């Protein structure tokens, strides 16, 4: 099963490596990873997606808590979180196909980030699953290049319940 973890770490060299190593040593592949600043300049947030069973995940979370640079670990349950991702997609766009592509863009609330003689670079922000769909629909047109940020997430403001935070033991 795939889990999304949100890990607050001190903004220090090595913090990311130490967190990721706990997955790597068990042979778990991190499917997506996003690191960036938070409301505090000395704190960074790591959002990572990993496919593993509940039991090893709990073990990893406990071991993460023991890392000196780690301030908080919590899982983001899909129904209680807001998750977003940004994707940039370069698509083959000869003039006869452009209208169709731009129509698609509108449906997905995507934007044109750049236009060239033969290609268009689209920019889309949304739930990761929306980006998946957009990607699938563009694929027949010929995706030349694609980059995604990996998802970031926060607890929903509407269902924020502090007791949901995973207890240490």
């Amino acid at each position, binding site marked *: 099963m795939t889990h999304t973890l949100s890990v607050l770490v*001190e903004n220090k060299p*090595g913090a990311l490596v130490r967190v990721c*190593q706990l997955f790597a040593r068990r042979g778990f592949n991190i499917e997506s990873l996003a690191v960036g600043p938070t409301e505090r300049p000395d704190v960074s947030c790591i959002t990572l997606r990993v496919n593993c069973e509940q039991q090893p995940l709990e*073990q990893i979370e*406990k*071991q993460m*808590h*023991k890392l*000196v640079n780690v301030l908080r670990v919590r899982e983001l349950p899909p129904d209680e979180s807001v998750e977003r991702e940004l994707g940039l997609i370069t698509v083959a766009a000869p003039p006869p196909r452009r209208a169709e592509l731009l129509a698609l863009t509108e449906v997905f609330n995507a934007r044109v980030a750049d236009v060239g003689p033969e290609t268009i670079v689209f920019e889309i922000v949304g739930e990761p699953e929306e980006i998946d769909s957009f990607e699938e629909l563009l694929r027949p047109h010929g995706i030349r290049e694609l980059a995604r940020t990996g998802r970031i997430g926060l607890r929903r403001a509407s269902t924020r319940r502090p007791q949901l935070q995973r207890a240490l*033991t």
Partner: protein
Amino acid sequence: MNPVPAAQTRRISGADAVLRSLEAEGVEVVFGLPGGAILPIYDALARGTTLRHVLARHEQGAGHMAEGYARASGRPGVAFATSGPGATNLVTPIADAWMDSTPLVCVTGQVRSHLIGTDAFQECDITGVTTPIVKHSWLVQEAEEIPHVLKAAFHVARTGRCGPVLVDIPRDLQEAELDFRYPEQVDLPGWRPPTRGHPRQIAEAARRIAAAERPVLYVGGGTLNADACAELLEVAEAGRLPVVTTLMAKGAFPETHELHFGWPGMHGPKWSNLAMNTCDLLVAVGARFDDRVTGKLAAFAPGAAVVHLDIDAAEISKLRRADVPVVGPLKQILGELAGLLKTLTPPRTEPWLRQLEAWREEFPLRYGNGGELKPQRVLETLRDLTSGRDDVIWTTGVGQHQMWAMQYLRCDRPRTFITSGGLGTMGYGVPAAIGAKAARPDATVVCVDGDGCFQMTSQELATAVLEDLPIVTVVVNNGYLGMVQQWQSMFFDERHSHVSLTRAVPDYALLARAYGAEGFTVSAEHELADALSEALACGRTAVVDARVDPMEQCFPMIPAGAAALEMVEYEEPAGVSAA
């Protein structure tokens, strides 16, 4: 940082700051070996310090000495090494300290800051190499950080679950100057080890213990790290609870006490494993359900509920689900538990204790008589020669001799049995003994070693002799990588593949004399007591080469992956009487 009054600060070099920090931390001894990238720190040592520096012959030796020092004293061990190969030679001791939760502070020199990342001479990313096996590491970025980093390093090494830390200091920062003041506190917002076990959980643990008919205290090395042996004794006596101590906890509970029932696991006596596996309540105290203890996990202690007391929340339900977890410092938890047990109904364990005693009578440790000198006899003689003495500290290497040491030696005091448990580091024994001797100069430190282990770190005999840290090493010399030979004999149709070392090369007594130590060779039982007595009494570094039966196997043995009670026991050959 708040500005501090000038009177409290001094302008000194980074290298001096390292030494002043260690002195402020109360460090007495460091173990190390110099090299290019740590020259400024060694120069500072030469210019004056209260620290004693013990010069090892190999950085691995220095690391294990620091571990031995830590285990004998309860204080963090400190090791110095230079960059590159000096630092990588510390990797094995760091991994060892990680597995056995030994507080260890390693200070390594690094190439100059501007050369980092250029594959400079003797450059190695040692913080990268050691990331999975340290509690934390620091690559110092500014000379001003040095006192703060060292304060944090000692704090992290010895709080929570003990373990190794590493501080890597580029050479230019050792030379740079800073305003030195050793901080009184550390600022580590992410480091919050538990400070108290929850009273409700402790009460529940007490209730379960009082209600149990067949409880066992399964005591691990965490009890020693927590300095909780007195409290453990109180708990055991208050609840009339049988105690089984793991290899790492040997000595945490007096082994001549009527409530001590041996050691669990792969080479534990049958009666100890019967106790562990037929109990109705397993109280794990600073223990981690290691595979060498449990055997096949699914079959381990099938009828037992588990109370798990540990400082490390990550150990709870890691391998065996805990019915009653209590996370916190064992000294406090066991202290409160003892108090509660005294107020609860009188213990109901007497029939269980009688059963355990009966098993101990029924299934004693056995080995064959006749033929060549038996290794078990060497250990029994050592035990008998030191019985009643309270000044003996044992260290071991890893393998058959280590298991015989566990089975036959008797340790009644904490921190008197120092061994490599989790990592199983061959070569640990000699340097660990030197470190223990540095921590306890009054003690008689005896390393029980194998011939394979001894050859991995025997160069440290020079350190023992020249640093006046006399130790006695008893080489249980069967001319084999004995435990590997045993596995090949038992599980690989006796195909002995690359395990023969020969008993004669080198001549260990001669080697000892080459180092200026005493050397003894014995190969017959009647020579044994005299040689060992003389070695123990000589007050100098000594090596006793005990040439033992090459094919003696260590029993009982639980084959890897088998259930604990599927152990292979010693079988008496026809016509030979058991000892």
